[in-house]
């Protein structure tokens, strides 16, 4: 494969994309930066506040600081819980799918359906589904005697949000893992049979190494989406009870559009974005590393 030629005229191809993403990303960000370093006495006259907002935000003893801190750890806990279930479950289900056969096409489509439903409708589905009186899930859980009330009980609410996310997004891990598995040439499975490898040995020595690249992408996508989840918890629990399921994005919207507390909202937005940038950079480096090793 000849290497890619260097050609700066390629910039002309990229300018349209740059324009759109500039307009919808950099310009809005400028207003956020603007608010994050100024304060106002109302009637929109602003004065320099330097890193005041940031210091409050990152100092847990302040009111906003504590609130940000709690929301951040609540979100991280949710992300790890969701990932801890979805990634292994996704790989397991991908392994259950047959490598060939008529059923595969249909199963893949059915598996993908939850991801095609608008996020607020997913909220509505589970809002109904988890009600003890009219929802199958709610009725079943309370039926077997577990105390389960999504709107009042913090644990029930939190567990429900995790269950919704597992239901909604495990298919992404399944589809990606299955694509990774199907890229493995049959000769590897034939060789494993000849060597008398057990199913587990085949998984550890052939399938898992080959799934590496795909799983990095799956984990990146899943972490990012869980880390910025907003609609489903808002619809099902409204962030409640209390702030049990008030994740970072919900809190930010409350501060920004609810209280219209510009300074805090802007600083929180920047820190929130910074975290996603860092995580993206880590995964992007791993991805390009794997790409280069695969081609070598």
């Amino acid at each position: 494969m000849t290497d890619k030629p260097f050609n700066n005229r390629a910039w002309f191809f990229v300018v349209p994309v740059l324009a759109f993403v500039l307009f919808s990303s950099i310009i809005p960000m400028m207003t956020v930066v603007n608010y994050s370093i100024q304060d106002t006495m109302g009637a929109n006259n602003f004065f320099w506040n330097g890193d005041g907002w940031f210091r409050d935000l990152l100092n847990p003893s302040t009111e906003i600081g504590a609130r940000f801190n709690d929301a951040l750890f609540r979100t991280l806990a949710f992300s790890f819980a969701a990932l801890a279930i979805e990634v292994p479950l996704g790989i397991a289900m991908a392994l259950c799918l047959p490598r060939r056969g008529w059923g595969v096409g249909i199963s893949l489509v059915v598996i993908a359906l939850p991801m095609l439903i608008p996020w607020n409708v997913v909220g509505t589905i589970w809002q109904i589904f988890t009600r003890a009186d009219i929802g199958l899930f709610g009725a079943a859980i309370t039926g077997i005697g577990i105390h389960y009330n999504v709107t009042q009980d913090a644990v029930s609410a939190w567990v429900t949000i995790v269950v919704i996310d597992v239901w909604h997004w495990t298919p992404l891990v399944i589809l990606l893992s299955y694509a990774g598995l199907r890229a493995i040439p049959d000769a590897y499975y034939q060789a494993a049979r000849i060597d008398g490898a057990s199913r587990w040995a085949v998984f550890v020595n052939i399938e898992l190494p080959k799934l590496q690249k795909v799983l990095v992408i799956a984990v990146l996508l899943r972490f990012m989406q869980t880390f910025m989840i907003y609609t489903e918890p808002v619809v099902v629990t409204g962030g409640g009870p209390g702030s049990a399921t008030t994740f970072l994005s919900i809190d930010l919207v409350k501060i920004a559009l609810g209280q219209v507390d510009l300074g805090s909202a802007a600083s929180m937005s920047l820190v929130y974005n910074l975290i996603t940038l860092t995580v993206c950079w880590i995964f992007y480096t791993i991805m390009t590393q794997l790409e280069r090793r695969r081609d070598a």
Partner: protein
Amino acid sequence: MRQSLAPRIILVVYLIVLMLPIYWLINMSLRTNSDIMSGMALWPHHPTFEKYIGIFNDPTWVHGFGVSLTYVAINTIISVTVALPAAYAFNRYHFIGDKHLFFWLLTNLMAPAAVYAMPFFNLYYAVGLFDTVWAVALAHCLFNVPLAVWILEGFVGGVPREIDETAAIDGYSFPRFFIRIFLPLIANGVGVTAFFCFMFSWVEELLATTLTSSDALPFAAVMTRSYSASGMDWSLLAAAGVLTMIPGAVVIWFVRNHIAKGFALGRV
């Protein structure tokens, strides 16, 4: 490793569990509120399309769906048209800052919508586009243009570079080569990318509801409005929910061979 039966059973169980909530929504949508409240029923004993008919005759709902379909269509067209040349450039050439730009697109794709809710609100208000389909269409470019670039770059990579060179040797000018030879080769790639842009714009709710108030209210906002009004009209909500699932379920059949490649941002 003969195909033992266990994996098949687990798979079928999983599929059933996966479809249960969706089935339950359909079940709800076919029952009247009183019927729902009267007691649990595994299937609609006397199903009625009353709610669906209600929605189709209610101008706010029809307007809601119309608005949503409009901004999604606009966004998809913009995203794919804008991303095509860029994806070709990213895959075929090195240029100053290509790595950093490609990474920056990824960060936009992953940016939390909540962070942009307020800035977009101010921006589109200032620009005078607030409460129009264009506001939401342009706002969704934040993540859909990068998504389109990444997925298309994956498909462009599927076409060997020697084909571009052979076309150059045959005498094709770049535009003619791109349209006559190259586009047909990534036709299914463009289709899949359009599908994913459509989907990610269709499912998004926060920005869509934040940037609209009355004229351009999307279906999602109409749904949230119907919560508070007359208490919980469950069957109406269910019916509306079922209707929103139709576009995805229909279109996916045509791109079923490339679903994974689309979701994996073209990296698989």
